[in-house]
């Protein structure tokens, strides 16, 4: 189809250029009831899973219906969201920090019609378009990353692992029967764009083979000193290599036994790819949190060193996750986050009740602070 100009003139890029205007002002987007009651909210209640009411000192109320969704979203789907908001919410809506959609109405009687509308919508394949839930002591949407949809470094897919996990945990999205919030996060490589390092349960894509070396092209495509410097374990050295055809080229050498498969070299140099069908897969972490409630925020711990990529639904992964969620649900006290529970019963019991294997991989050996994770006491359970 024909090129349509926006008005931009490539020959004079600075002509009429507008820059540095920032985002739209939020006030334009507030629903009326929000604008009016901002800073005046006195309390809230979760009426049922996915439905909240916030009450203002003015007497106003705002009812919020929260829906899950794939974060990967088509414009068609967004337009449908807009249709709903136009119909029920005076043309306003918001997204949460975990990629749920929130529809807000200013009186109770508008809630049921909205809910019914949302529940009625399904994709052709059968899945719900707008499942209501994600509030309170349950599981909400999974914060995640690009995976095979868009990134160059993933060791697994993001959207697929998330869909599989949310299907497996769906009841917990629509119920509030866990001891506390349980946040699941996903990142497809250890750049950890999903910030899985502080989640109750985290799914992480991980490589297990050192980079391949595309010697013929390496020096052409990469800056060798940058590649060498990129390696946190100093596994990479510059080297001269003789190709099959006899030519000698500048390249690098990798000390495989020092490699921890972080992919940092590949970030700096496309001639050092790590991806491998058998090598790549999933690490599961658990016990992290972000809130300061009762206990301090804490890092997630590696609880399953590796699971292979089992496309398209990663059953071993969802199994292990369900085991953790169930054991936690049965064992923890009200208000107790997964990591606090694991610490209370002891990690040795965690592995027992979650029926997970402990292997030497789970013992820290990275840098000196690894020491802090070893057990410096006789206080342990047999």
């Amino acid at each position, binding site marked *: 189809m024909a090129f349509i100009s926006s008005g931009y003139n490539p020959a004079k*890029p600075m002509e009429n250029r507008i820059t540095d205007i920032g*985002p739209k002002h939020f006030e334009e987007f507030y629903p009326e009831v929000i604008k009016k009651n901002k800073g005046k909210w006195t309390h809230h209640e979760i009426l049922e899973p996915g439905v909240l009411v916030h009450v203002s000192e003015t007497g106003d109320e705002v009812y919020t219906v929260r829906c899950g969704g794939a974060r990967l979203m088509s414009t068609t789907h967004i337009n449908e969201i807009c249709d709903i908001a136009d119909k029920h919410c005076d043309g306003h809506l918001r997204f949460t920090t975990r990629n749920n959609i929130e529809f807000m109405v200013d009186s109770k009687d508008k809630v049921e019609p909205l809910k019914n509308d949302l529940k009625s919508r399904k994709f052709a394949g059968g899945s719900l378009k707008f499942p209501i839930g994600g509030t309170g*002591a349950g599981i909400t949407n999974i914060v995640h990353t690009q995976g095979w949809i868009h990134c160059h470094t993933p060791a697994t897919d993001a959207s697929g692992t998330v*869909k599989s996990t949310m299907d497996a945990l769906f009841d917990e999205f629509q119920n509030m029967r866990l001891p506390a919030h349980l946040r699941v996060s996903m990142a497809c490589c250890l750049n950890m764009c999903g910030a899985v390092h502080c989640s109750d349960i985290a799914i992480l894509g991980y490589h297990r083979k050192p980079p391949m070396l595309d010697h013929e092209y390496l020096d052409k495509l990469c800056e060798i000193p940058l590649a060498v410097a990129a390696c946190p374990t100093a596994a990479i050295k510059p080297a001269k290599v003789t190709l099959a055809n006899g030519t000698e080229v500048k390249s690098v050498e990798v000390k495989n036994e020092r490699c921890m498969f972080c992919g940092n070299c590949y970030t700096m140099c496309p001639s050092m790819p790590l991806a491998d069908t058998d090598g790549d897969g999933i690490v599961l972490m658990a016990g992290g949190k972000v809130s300061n409630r009762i206990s301090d925020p804490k890092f997630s711990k590696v609880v399953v060193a590796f699971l292979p990529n089992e496309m398209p639904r990663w059953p071993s992964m969802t199994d292990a996750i369900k085991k953790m969620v169930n054991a936690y649900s049965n064992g923890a006290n009200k208000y107790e986050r997964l990591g606090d529970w694991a610490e209370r019963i002891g990690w040795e019991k965690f592995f027992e009740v979650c029926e997970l294997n402990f292997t030497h991989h789970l013992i820290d050996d990275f840098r000196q602070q690894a020491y802090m994770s070893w057990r410096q006491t006789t206080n342990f359970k047999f």
Partner: protein
Amino acid sequence: MAKHETPFLDQLESGPWPSFVSDMKQQAEVRAKNEAGVEFQIPQDCVDDLLGVVELSYKHGRTHWKHGGIVGVFGYGGGVIGRYCDQPSLFPGVEHFHTMRVNQPAGKYYSTEYLRSITKLWDLRGSGMTNMHGATGDIILLGTTTPQLEEVFWELTHNLGQDLGGSGSNLRTPADCLGTSRCEYSCYDTNSLVHFLTNEFQDELHRPAFPYKFKFKLDGCPNCCVASIARSDMSFIGTWKDDIKIDQDAVNKYIEQDPAYPSNAGAHKGRDWGPFDIQKEVINLCPTGCMKMVGKELKIDNANCTRCMHCINVMPRALKIGDVRGCSILCGAKAPILDGAQMGSLLVPFMEVNPDNDYEAITDLIENIWDWWMEEGKNRERLGELIMRQGFQKLLEVTGIEAVPQHVAYPRTNPYIFWREDEVPGGFERDVVEYRKHHLR
């Protein structure tokens, strides 16, 4: 008819959770039919090819995206992530498939009018696929070709009044929880501050001058709904300095199991946890043990409260945040690359959040930190790593903040103190000859 067979992906259409595959198929079909008569500026079948390339990844267990080249819009060093397919002949529709990061509004509130203007633009000039939202907070417009980048940018700025977000060694798009807009716990107006900071630092957001990326996140209270403490080089977390406000009548409503006073605002309704027990559920779980009931009155020893939010979360109608409000500022959070993950470390226990002087105290602090990091930070060294390398003391020094015990979880366990020469009487230079008079060799 789908362009590519997708037997793997098809299996991800079942199950209750919204299927990204179904949505992509619906989008592919909408584009194929083109009932709206859009003059697509990038391949009409790009979503078909996206399905195809992802299916191939499901078969291989490997990504089929290459390293992005450096693409972007003129004068900006961020906002665009270049991306090319490594099987362009199989999937020509996604041969070039760059994303554009659009700076989301504070609190992620939208009008449908605005959203529709975005979808319209993206149908015309991009794949029509998005992420709502990226993990940093941006609206991610997923997939377009190089020539369209400037066009999209022009339309955004001229027609939508909307700028790009960050990428590269820049300030990244700041993000916030919804704050006072809809939350009674919020200790300051996160939406206003995030909007102010984003605009104040447009230059840093768009033009790479930093050693590496830099993130702000703003939480209205210690519940940390935008996870600032884990994901931002500087996190601004609302807090208060005075007492928790107690409504004793409401406390007793909770104790009496009044149905309008469910524990934790109803967050645990899905299971029968037995009748609410204030001793067990609030007082005994208070991490500092600073609460007690005296008769029918709840007492809080506020000097020993760490404002962890637990009691307030459990009884939001009875307990309210204090009135002397501001924020704590923590520095250095980041993902594990390279030296391991960090959470933010407390730098400012309490700072006022004052729009009336353009948040002067906050911007001053930011600029001091940036000056130091730009001076001393190595290439690809995050603030947290610089603090680790040069020491927390150095951070205090460059920000002119006095050391207080609040800065540490516990004082150092090693006595390896690096005394400065000016702190030690007589300095470091000594006379060995004089010394040897008293101490023979």
